[in-house]
C-alpha cells in the first residue's frame, strides 16, 4: 500500500525538518574526519592522496554552511514536505558526490569508506521518496562503475591506502557488486521498516488529536456541570436566605413576647403578633413562588396542558380579574389590541400567571391616577404584547437583573415590601418555555415598558432543569 506522505505533511514536515538539522550537525563530524585524516594520514606513514581529502573536507564544510543557513531560514515555519524533501535530496546528492570523490582518493573499490554508501542510502530512504532513492542508488552505482573502470583502465590514477596494494585487483568486481546490492538492499529494508513506522505515526497522531478533542469536550462538559452546580448552589443559598430572613423576624418577635418584654395580651403585643403573621404570609408567598418556578422549569409535565390560546381573550380575562385591584389603586387599565393573536401551542395557566404578573406589577408600582396600557400587535408571525405603565420605573442598570431570582430594584423595595422577587423570574421562564422573549425598558417620560414576544406557531419546548439551575420541589431544603 502506497503511503501518500504529502497528505500528512502536517505530521511529517516538522519531523523531517528536525532530521535535516540533525543531518547537518552530523556532517560537521564527517568534514572534520576528512580534514583530520588529511592532516594525520602522512604522519602514520601511509600512502594516499591526503591533501585531496582535505580539499573534499573543505568542500563538505562549505556546502554544509549553505544548508545550515537554508534550514535556519525555515526555523519556526519548516514549510511543506515537498520543499523539505527537495532540500534533503540536494544534501544527499552533494554527500554522495563527495563520498564518490573520497572513495576514489582512498583506494577506489578497496576503500574502507564504501559502507558509508549504505548508511547514506538508509538515511536517504528515511527522508526522501523511495523511488527517488532508487534513482540515486542507480546513479551512485554507475558512478562507482565508472570510477572502477577508469582506475582499471589506468585512465584514473589508483590511490591505495595500503603500501603493499598498488592497484585494484579482481576483488574489486565483487566489491562493486556487493556495494550495489547492499545499497538497493538497505533501501528496501529501510523502506519496509519506516513505512510501517510512518503509518503508525499517522495513526498515533490522529488518535492523539481525537483524544485531545475528546478531552476538550469533556472539559467543556465538566465546566458546564460546574456552572450549573454553582448556579444551583447559589440558588439554594439565596432561597434559604430569603426564607430565613422572615423566619428570623418571626423568631425575634415571638422571643420578645415570650421573654416578657411586651405583654402578648396588650395592644402592642397584638401588633407584634400581627407582624409575625405578616412575615408568615411572606414565607408562604415565597414558598408558593418557588414551587411555581420549579413547576415551570420542569416543563415536561406541562406538555399535556398545551392547546390553542387566544391571547386577546386571555388578556381580557386578566383585565377582568385585576380590575378591582386597579380600581382600588385608582389606576386605569387600557387595552390596545390590534388583530387577533392565537398561539398554536400555549399552556393557558402559565400564560395567565405570566401576563397577570406583568399587569399586576404595572398596577402595583403605579401612583394613583396613573394608567396601565396593554398593547397587543401581530409582528412577523409573532404576538407582541407590551405592558406600559407610568410607575416608579426600573433603574437602567437593573433592567436585566430584575428577571433574576430574588432580585428587586431598590426603589421597588422602598415602594412596597410586598413581592418575593421571584415573579419576573417565573414570567421569564414561562415566556421562554413558549419560545418567546421578554425584556424591560425605561419608558420615555417615566415608567416601564415590558415587552413580550411569542411565536404564534411552535411547540413550547420542554425546559431542561440543568439549563437554568432550577430545582424540583423534592430538591428544595425541607
Amino acid at each position, binding site marked *: 500500500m502506497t503511503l501518500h506522505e504529502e497528505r500528512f505533511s502536517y505530521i511529517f514536515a516538522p519531523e523531517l525538518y528536525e532530521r535535516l538539522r540533525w543531518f547537518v550537525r552530523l556532517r560537521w563530524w564527517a568534514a572534520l574526519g576528512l580534514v583530520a585524516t588529511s592532516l594525520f594520514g602522512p604522519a602514520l606513514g601511509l600512502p594516499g592522496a591526503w591533501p585531496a581529502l582535505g580539499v573534499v573536507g573543505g568542500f563538505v564544510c562549505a556546502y554544509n554552511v549553505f544548508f545550515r543557513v537554508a534550514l535556519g531560514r525555515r526555523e519556526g515555519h519548516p514549510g511543506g514536505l515537498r520543499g523539505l524533501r527537495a532540500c534533503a535530496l540536494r544534501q544527499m546528492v552533494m554527500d554522495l558526490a563527495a563520498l564518490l570523490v573520497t572513495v576514489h582518493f582512498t583506494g577506489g573499490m578497496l576503500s574502507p569508506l564504501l559502507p558509508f554508501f549504505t548508511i547514506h542510502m538508509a538515511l536517504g530512504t528515511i527522508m526522501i521518496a523511495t523511488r527517488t532513492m532508487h534513482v540515486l542508488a542507480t546513479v551512485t552505482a554507475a558512478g562507482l562503475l565508472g570510477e572502477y573502470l577508469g582506475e582499471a583502465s589506468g585512465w584514473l590514477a589508483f590511490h591505495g591506502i595500503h603500501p603493499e596494494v598498488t592497484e585494484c585487483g579482481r576483488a574489486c568486481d565483487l566489491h562493486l557488486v556487493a556495494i550495489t546490492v547492499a545499497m538497493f538492499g538497505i533501501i528496501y529494508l529501510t523502506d519496509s521498516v519506516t513505512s510501517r513506522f510512518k503509518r503508525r505515526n499517522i495513526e498515533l497522531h490522529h488518535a492523539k488529536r481525537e483524544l485531545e478533542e475528546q478531552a476538550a469536550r469533556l472539559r467543556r462538559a465538566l465546566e458546564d456541570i460546574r456552572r450549573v452546580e454553582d448556579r444551583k448552589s447559589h440558588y439554594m443559598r439565596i432561597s434559604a436566605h430569603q426564607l430565613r430572613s422572615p*423566619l428570623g*423576624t418571626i*423568631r425575634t*418577635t415571638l422571643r420578645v413576647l415570650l421573654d416578657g418584654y411586651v405583654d402578648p395580651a396588650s395592644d402592642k403585643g397584638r401588633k407584634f403578633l400581627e407582624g409575625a403573621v*405578616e412575615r408568615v404570609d411572606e414565607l408562604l408567598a415565597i414558598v408558593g413562588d418557588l414551587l411555581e418556578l420549579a413547576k415551570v422549569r420542569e416543563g415536561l409535565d406541562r406538555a399535556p396542558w398545551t392547546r390553542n390560546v387566544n391571547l386577546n381573550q386571555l388578556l381580557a380575562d386578566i383585565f377582568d380579574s385585576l380590575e378591582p385591584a386597579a380600581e382600588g389603586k385608582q389606576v386605569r387599565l387600557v387595552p390596545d389590541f390590534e388583530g387577533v393573536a392565537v398561539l398554536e401551542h400555549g399552556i393557558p395557566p402559565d400564560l395567565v400567571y405570566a401576563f397577570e404578573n406583568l399587569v399586576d406589577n404595572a398596577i402595583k408600582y403605579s401612583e394613583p391616577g396613573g394608567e396601565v396600557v396593554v398593547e397587543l400587535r401581530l409582528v412577523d408571525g409573532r404576538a407582541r404584547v407590551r405592558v406600559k405603565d407610568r410607575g416608579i420605573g426600573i433603574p437602567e442598570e437593573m433592567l436585566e437583573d430584575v428577571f433574576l431570582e430574588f432580585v428587586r430594584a431598590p426603589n421597588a423595595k422602598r415602594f412596597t415590601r410586598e413581592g418575593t422577587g421571584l415573579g419576573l423570574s417565573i414570567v421569564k421562564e414561562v415566556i421562554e418555555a413558549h419560545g418567546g422573549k421578554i425584556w424591560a425598558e425605561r419608558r420615555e417620560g417615566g415608567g416601564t415598558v415590558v415587552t413580550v414576544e411569542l411565536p404564534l406557531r411552535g411547540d413550547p419546548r420542554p425546559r431542561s432543569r440543568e439549563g437554568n439551575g432550577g430545582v424540583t420541589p423534592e430538591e428544595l431544603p425541607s
Partner: protein
Amino acid sequence: MPGKRILLVDDDEVFVEAVRAVLETRYAVETAPNGTEALRRVREDPPDLVILDVMMDHLSEGFDVARELRRDEKTRGIPIIMLTGVDQVYNVRMEVEEDWVPCEKYLEKPIAPQELLEHVAEVIG
C-alpha cells in the same frame, strides 16, 4: 429616663419594632429604614451606637453605611454593631478582618433579646 441613644437601621419594620421593645428597656431608640436615612440622622444628631442591618435596599448597604460613618471625621467615633443573616456572617467577618468595615461587633440574626442587650452593654455600657 434612659441616657444613651441607639440608632437601629433595618428595613424590616416588624423586626425593628421587636428589637426596639427590647432595647427600650435600657436605652433611647431611634430607627431608620435604609442607609440614606441612617446617614442623615447620624449627621444631624450623632447617637451613642448604631446597629446596622447589612442587607437592606442594596445587598451590602450596611457595609456602605459603616464605611461612610468611619470616613467622616464627625462620625468616626460612633460605635457600630452589624446585624447579619447567618449566611452572611462569613462575608462580614472577612470584610471586618480585611479592615474594610470597621465595626465593634457583628451579630447573627435572629438574636435572643437578652444576648443583644449584653452585647450592646459591652459596647456602650
